[in-house]
């Protein structure tokens, strides 16, 4: 009990010193605080504003369309096209081949051919419309969308006219109609969109938030020659390691939470141009019940990432060396984020056993106001287990004195190969973590 008391007594002042010093380092402040607040909201704002601008540009131009084979009976179709504001009917060449050549060269955006129906058709006068576009050109794709609307309308009118000619009313031949509607409220739509985007940024931000503090607290100390100073403090070595670890985790968790908060607040503005375009109401708000789960997710992820990064950085003697040693772990943490983009990915029980992915899925569901408690329970247990394993590895590493004092010249890989697998002694030293 007294030992634990001494440990905690030592942890707090060192934690405070570490955190205060880190907050005075520009790189850490920029990466762990400024970037989560500013960078992603800005990037998304720039991206969506750019998209809205491009969409506006696309909407602005007129599609050049040629119609081949339109006899007098199809005059209404040509009239529809002429009346369409965004379609410009080109003087159509009589040869389809010439029109298609003009399409390929970019002089036309689409070619419509009116062809006789195959095998004469079911009713007299039946025909087929073939729309040819160049999918590799944005203008051409837009022309097809515009033509789709016109041809659909022409088809409807043609069918109605033919039905009337045969004494059939519209209600009789239109056996059924299809309409769709969305039961999701504006808030639910917002939560769905947030759930798609935020968990991915959350993992990235926690990793970025931990990166520099982890390197600074280990390799940075060695580079500044303050490692030995820290080793002579009258506290257990475990207190030093714990304080540093908690400080790094604080920055990671803070970065994740800050990013989620700022992104949620700014999503309305970012998405506004697109939402307005779609004519749908979307409200970006995280449900209150998700907040504890988000905090839990930030804590679990930050504790894991901080532990992993510090293990890798423990072998570095300079800041630069630390950065290159931590980078593989950083990329490893980001790898599962790619799987989040798989459509229809559900927070299943097996997925709850996969570190990082489980926390990310838990956060995603919480944002969408869904809580699968068995999966959340497993996620917490797995995360705690992984963190405990990392801390155990850290204590094993710190038992080697040359690693503690920084005279070991190698990375984690070299350490595992020469010390753990080869079973060589502790570098001529006793226990390091006293």
């Amino acid at each position, binding site marked *: 009990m007294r030992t634990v008391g001494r440990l905690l007594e030592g942890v707090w002042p060192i934690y405070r010193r570490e955190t205060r010093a880190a907050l005075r380092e520009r790189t850490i402040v920029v990466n762990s605080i400024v970037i989560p607040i500013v960078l992603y909201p800005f990037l998304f704002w720039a991206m969506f504003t750019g998209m809205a601008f491009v969409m506006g540009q696309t909407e602005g131009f007129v599609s050049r369309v040629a119609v081949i084979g339109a006899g007098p009976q199809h005059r209404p179709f040509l009239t529809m096209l002429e009346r369409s504001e965004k379609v410009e009917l080109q003087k159509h060449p009589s040869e389809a081949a010439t029109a298609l050549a003009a399409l390929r060269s970019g002089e036309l955006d689409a070619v419509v051919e009116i062809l006789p129906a195959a095998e004469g058709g079911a009713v007299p006068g039946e025909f087929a419309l073939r729309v040819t576009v160049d999918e590799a050109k944005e203008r051409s794709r837009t022309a097809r969308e515009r033509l789709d609307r016109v041809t659909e309308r022409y088809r409807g009118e043609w069918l109605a006219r033919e039905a009337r000619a045969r004494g059939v009313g519209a209600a009789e031949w239109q056996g059924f109609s299809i309409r769709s509607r969305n039961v999701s409220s504006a808030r639910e739509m917002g939560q769905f969109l947030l759930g798609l985007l935020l968990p991915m940024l959350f993992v990235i931000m926690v990793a970025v938030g931990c990166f520099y503090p982890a390197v600074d607290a280990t390799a940075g100390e060695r580079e*500044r020659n303050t490692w030995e100073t820290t080793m002579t403090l009258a506290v257990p070595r475990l207190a030093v390691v714990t304080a540093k670890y908690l400080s790094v985790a604080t920055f990671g968790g803070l970065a994740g939470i800050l990013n989620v908060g700022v992104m949620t607040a700014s999503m309305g503005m970012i998405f506004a141009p697109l939402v307005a375009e779609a004519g749908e109401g979307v409200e970006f708000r995280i449900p209150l019940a998700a907040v504890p789960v988000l905090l839990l997710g930030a804590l679990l992820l930050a504790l894991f990432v901080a532990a992993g990064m510090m293990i890798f950085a423990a072998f570095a003697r300079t800041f630069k060396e630390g950065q290159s040693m931590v980078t593989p772990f950083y990329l490893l943490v980001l790898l599962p984020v790619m799987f989040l983009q798989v459509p229809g990915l559900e927070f299943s029980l097996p997925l709850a056993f996969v570190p990082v992915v489980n926390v990310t899925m838990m956060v995603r569901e919480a944002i969408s106001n869904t809580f699968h408690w068995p999966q959340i329970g497993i996620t917490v247990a797995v995360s705690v287990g992984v963190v405990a394993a990392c801390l155990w590895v850290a204590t094993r590493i710190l038992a080697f004195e040359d690693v503690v004092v920084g005279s070991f010249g190698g990375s984690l890989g070299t350490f595992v190969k020469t010390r753990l697998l080869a079973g060589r002694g502790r570098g001529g030293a006793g226990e390091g973590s006293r």
Partner: protein
Amino acid sequence: MSQPVVVQGLTKIFFDDARGEVRAVDGVDFFCRAGEIFGLLGANGAGKTTTLRMIATVLAPTAGTALVMGHDVQREAEAARRALGFYSATTALYPRLTARETLEFFARINGVAAARVPARAEELVARFGLGDYADTRVDKLSTGMKQKVSIARTVAHDPPVLVFDEPTVGLDVLNALEMQRVIAEFRREGKAIIFSTHIMSEAERLCDRIAIIHRGRIHACDTLENLRAATGKHYLEDIFIHYVELANGDGGGTP
């Protein structure tokens, strides 16, 4: 009563990939009294720093013991650390803290009661003339001021034992003299001081007793007067060479 620092059979063996086992320190014995400056004199690589690092609990001894105020550096590392202040060229200051924050941190972490920490920091600021720079970040201070802050943080918790590992390395003449003056002042306050150096004049001027260390072993340990009497040589440099040659098997007969 036991001496503040007692070292017996202290040994440190390192493993080197190229050289195999290296005995950096090999069965060293000495003690240091209160109010005494005990000098460890040796060339680079003689084992001075390794010995002091073991006393300061930075390194663990392979064999032997070192007691600081009766606390074994291995079994009671924390208590031993609390009883000593360790200063060396490799124990730099935290650059992003101010001088005052540094002193408060070291006082608190090394056992000064929380309520007394601000007053203790103020005492140190006044004693070492840090007033104008107390709230300046350490990395913005001049070398001389950094040195003062460094000494102040070493004694922040007023330890009875002080360990100085080549404290004047890299300092100009004036700062080196200032360092020697401060160390002499600590002796007058009754602290037990272990001081390592390879500069003969420093050892001559400061040390009450001198141990000559070479290749990890102490070859002589006495007052300067007794060392002169034992070797028949007046200058410490000659005395040092005498013992080194003896250790190397060269007879120590250089006039």
